[in-house]
């Protein structure tokens, strides 16, 4: 069965290639830092399942240390000039879009097809990982088409990949590390501690109490999501602390409206926090924004207005 173990080997080879290309970039004063960072990540992908939890923990600390003390720096792989790109764009035309669009298309089709594909009783692809396997397959299809169209020298795709990975830098690892922080928070019961505070001081009768319960729930969802970076972590805590006992219990609100609009209030929080790195910090790095928090700044007005709108919406329809 094709599943995560196979993908991790492919990923390990990819990051090892990034590490080696980085190390051979003689013009980059930080090339050894790049080698260490991407090399350690390659070790994690190739051997992470065999070295034990403690060694993995030390490995994360080493990665964070390399990033924290600015050991990484972008190299300068050869790429084309803006003039060459315009000329190439004119020559290749709209065909350039094909490899880019093949990736989401293969991901989409593969996600459905792989879940259904069985030989005998066994799945060929792990159905739980169908989307991820499809994405990697889509990437490989896109790469083959792009190479056939552009006909670069063999090392060029990897060098271009390194150019972009260097631009993203340590931020590439932030989403995974934040997920690990979430696990530590969960093991330490951080959610329960906050949940114990959440409902404690709210009034439990009268029209003002009903309004306050809704406001505390929607804003609590957003604030807790800002802290944890993930509305899924906030939902059980806030719903057990405020939603179910007060809105549904005391004030007889509709659990469907409460839960649906409550989750979306959490999403408003996701738009405002650097803890949701893959949505907010990674794109800032990918788009080479000068302000690390530029995407968050662009989202805050929409998020705040929508949070207020959600609060009104819930109050009007939940009771």
């Amino acid at each position: 069965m094709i599943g995560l173990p196979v993908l991790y080997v492919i990923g390990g080879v990819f990051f090892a290639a990034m590490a080696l290309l980085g190390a051979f970039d003689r013009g980059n004063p930080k090339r050894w830092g790049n080698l260490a960072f991407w090399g350690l990540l390659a070790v994690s992908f190739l051997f992470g399942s065999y070295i034990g939890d403690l060694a993995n923990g030390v490995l994360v600390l080493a990665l964070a240390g390399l990033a924290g003390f600015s050991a990484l720096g972008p190299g300068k792989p050869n790429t084309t000039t803006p003039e060459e790109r315009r000329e190439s764009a004119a020559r290749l035309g709209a065909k350039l879009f094909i490899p880019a669009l093949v990736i989401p298309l293969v991901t989409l089709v593969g996600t459905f097809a792989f879940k259904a594909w069985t030989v005998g009783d066994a799945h060929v692809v792990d159905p739980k990982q169908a989307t991820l396997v499809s994405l990697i397959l889509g990437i490989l299809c896109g790469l083959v088409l792009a190479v056939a169209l552009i006909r670069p020298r063999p090392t060029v795709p990897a060098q271009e990949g390194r150019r972009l990975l260097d631009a993203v830098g340590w931020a590439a690892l932030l989403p995974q590390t934040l997920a690990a922080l979430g696990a530590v928070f969960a093991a330490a019961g951080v959610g329960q501690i906050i949940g114990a505070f959440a409902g404690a001081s709210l009034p439990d009768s009268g029209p003002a109490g009903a309004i306050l319960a809704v406001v505390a729930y929607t804003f609590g969802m957003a604030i807790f999501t800002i802290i944890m970076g993930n509305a899924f972590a906030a939902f059980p805590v806030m719903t057990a602390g405020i939603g179910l006992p007060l809105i549904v219990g005391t004030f007889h609100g509709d659990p469907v409206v409460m839960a649906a609009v409550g989750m979306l209030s959490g999403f408003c929080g996701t738009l405002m926090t650097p803890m949701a790195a893959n949505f907010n910090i990674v794109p800032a790095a990918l788009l080479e924004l000068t302000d690390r928090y530029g995407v968050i700044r662009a989202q805050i007005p929409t998020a705040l207005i929508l949070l207020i709108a959600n609060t009104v919406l819930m109050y009007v329809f939940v009771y």
Partner: protein
Amino acid sequence: MSLWPLIGIAVVVVGFVLRFNPLLVVAAAALATGVAFGLSTGLDVVAAAIKTLETFGKAFNDNRYITLTWMILPVIGLLERAGLQEKARDLVGAIKVLTTGRLLILYLLVRQFTSALGLTSLGGHPQMVRPLIAPMAEGAAEANLGPLTEPARMRIRAMSAATDNIGLFFGEDIFIAIASILLIKGFLEQNGIVVEPLALSVWAMPTAVLAFVIHGVRLWRLDAQLAKLNAPEAAQ
């Protein structure tokens, strides 16, 4: 109940506000919370630190799949080298009525609609925004305003990324098999309340419409803001 495990949250807030490297901040927060929790259960410092590192390391290892998505970069880089962004720019620049704001409103609508059908993978920052949407949005602005100043370019890129996120978040919850709907259904069921996924997804629609209107109005006003950001006096 000990409050000390909350110290990790304080580390995160202080670390992000003071703009320390986020990776370092996150590792420090994990250690702080984990050790504080270990101490509160009666472990000594060394044992608490080792236990924390084990939890942190195991979770990091279990979540490696998140980082796999970067394997897309060689394809995107290769296509950029051959002029993909320039082509996307030209395509939009040729259509005069397509301003940056209007283009992003259109993308918001498409992203919300496809996400509502469960097609969330038809978007995203490495796949769509960097190679196609952001260059198109810049191209539309260049066609209308001429060469862009740095602040205008940054603003366009940030709004392109924001539009992808907002379209995804406030579209996907309409799809009945999405993770968040399943989580809600499962959690309510544990608490003795049985709900239909369809009912939850119906109640995601009003917020989806509100999100489109609110963000759409902001995008509508973006063109005027860009004209101001790109005015000669703003460049100095």
